[in-house]
């Protein structure tokens, strides 16, 4: 609204209850190792994309679980699916498959209802 010279700031909080976590449920079902992540960041440390962009698979995993889907969708395509992250994961999470499943999930549905 121009007449005031400012607009009402949007909340930065993750509103857990309002978010749709359909994508996360889909991945949990197809790739149960998704549950095992302890957010150590090993995947991001070895990631080629993470070296040159602000892509972080560790953060992406969390955002999927919280249902912050818009942010996830914007970042997914940065992954080149090389699978190096899967090699380093200390918890044996099939990290590459999580990205693949997330891409699939978004292709299936625009409104995250999977």
């Amino acid at each position, binding site marked *: *609204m121009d*007449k*005031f*010279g*400012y*607009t*009402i*700031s*949007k*909340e930065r909080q993750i509103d857990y209850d309002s978010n749709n976590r359909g994508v996360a449920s889909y991945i949990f079902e197809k790739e149960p190792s998704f549950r095992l992540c302890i957010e150590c960041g090993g995947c991001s440390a070895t990631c080629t994309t993470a070296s040159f962009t602000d892509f972080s698979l560790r953060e992406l995993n969390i955002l999927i679980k919280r249902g912050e889907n818009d942010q996830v969708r914007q970042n997914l395509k940065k992954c080149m699916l090389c699978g190096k992250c899967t090699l380093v994961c200390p918890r044996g999470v099939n990290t590459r498959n999580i990205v693949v499943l997330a891409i699939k999930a978004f292709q299936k549905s625009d409104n995250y209802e999977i």
Partner: protein
Amino acid sequence: MIIKGKKAVWNDYQKEIADNNYYYVRSCVRQNFFPGSETAFLKIMREELNKDVYEHPCHTTCTGIGYHGDIVPVETTMTVVARQFALMTEAGYENLLPSCITSFGLYTEILDTWHHFPEVEKKVRKQLKKATGREFKIPKNLAHASDVIFKFRKEIGAKARYKLINKNTGEPLKVVDHIGCHYAKMFPSRGIGGAEYPYVLTGMIEEWGGQIIDYPERRHCCGFGFRQYLVQANRGFSIACSKEKFESMKPFKPDMIITNCPGCPMFLDRWQYVINEMEGKRYGQNGEGIPVFTYEEVAGLVLGYDPWDLGLQMHQTDCEPVLDKIGIEYAPEDKYKLNILPAYSEKHNLINV
């Protein structure tokens, strides 16, 4: 909500409040924001409660706005505050009674700093002496004006002409209390009821017939916050804070908001207008806003003072819905008659030196 648990917390946070002989220091901004409040406070103290309240014409800002807005350095602030103490000492008073929450917080912070770092106090004394030739005593008692109204809430209740009760339904009015951040968030032990469950305004409301609402964002800042408001580009942040509170309190259907800080009623009041302009949203019932009051205004209404003498025409969110619910008599046609105010203030010799 387990009220017993809250009472236990309230019992943990009591404070000593002087009984009489106060040295009253006004707020920089309240006389513009809500000009009737301090006037009403003095009238209540002097005429209803027969207390000695002294004001000094040489009192200046405490610099709190500049200090919290990152403009005035702390040492300068301390020296200015030392001068206020000196004026009080010279006038022969020991009980400091600030009208402003930020001043109260700042005085508390400075006294605490001097307590822990006596060398700082020594330095400030030296600076004050050099600059003004003045000396001072540390106040014996420091209480915010809302603490004093809290202390005498029963006396005010005993003289009440109106109760905070909806005359049509007989139900207590549902009241949201908002405590200024600088009242107890910096020093929880200096606030009645502490910082998490403050009792200072709740005690007044309960005593005067109303019912307090505890809603999720009760502890959230009103949005003044000095820094976020002072620059226009940041005001979206300020208004978002108020909006968060309104959204959170709305389901509880509050009849009114009571505050004890200079900035909070200003922002909670004015931002309701701006949010409505920007988004077409109102948070009260029947498409109205939620009226916002200072505690002095509420005390004045309870005591039967004329709403326009209390300055309620200065509110941007109309106060009439609350007046009507309580059944307070007022003349709508007098709302904007400015000649009422000078007549009122001339009658009372407010500055007593």
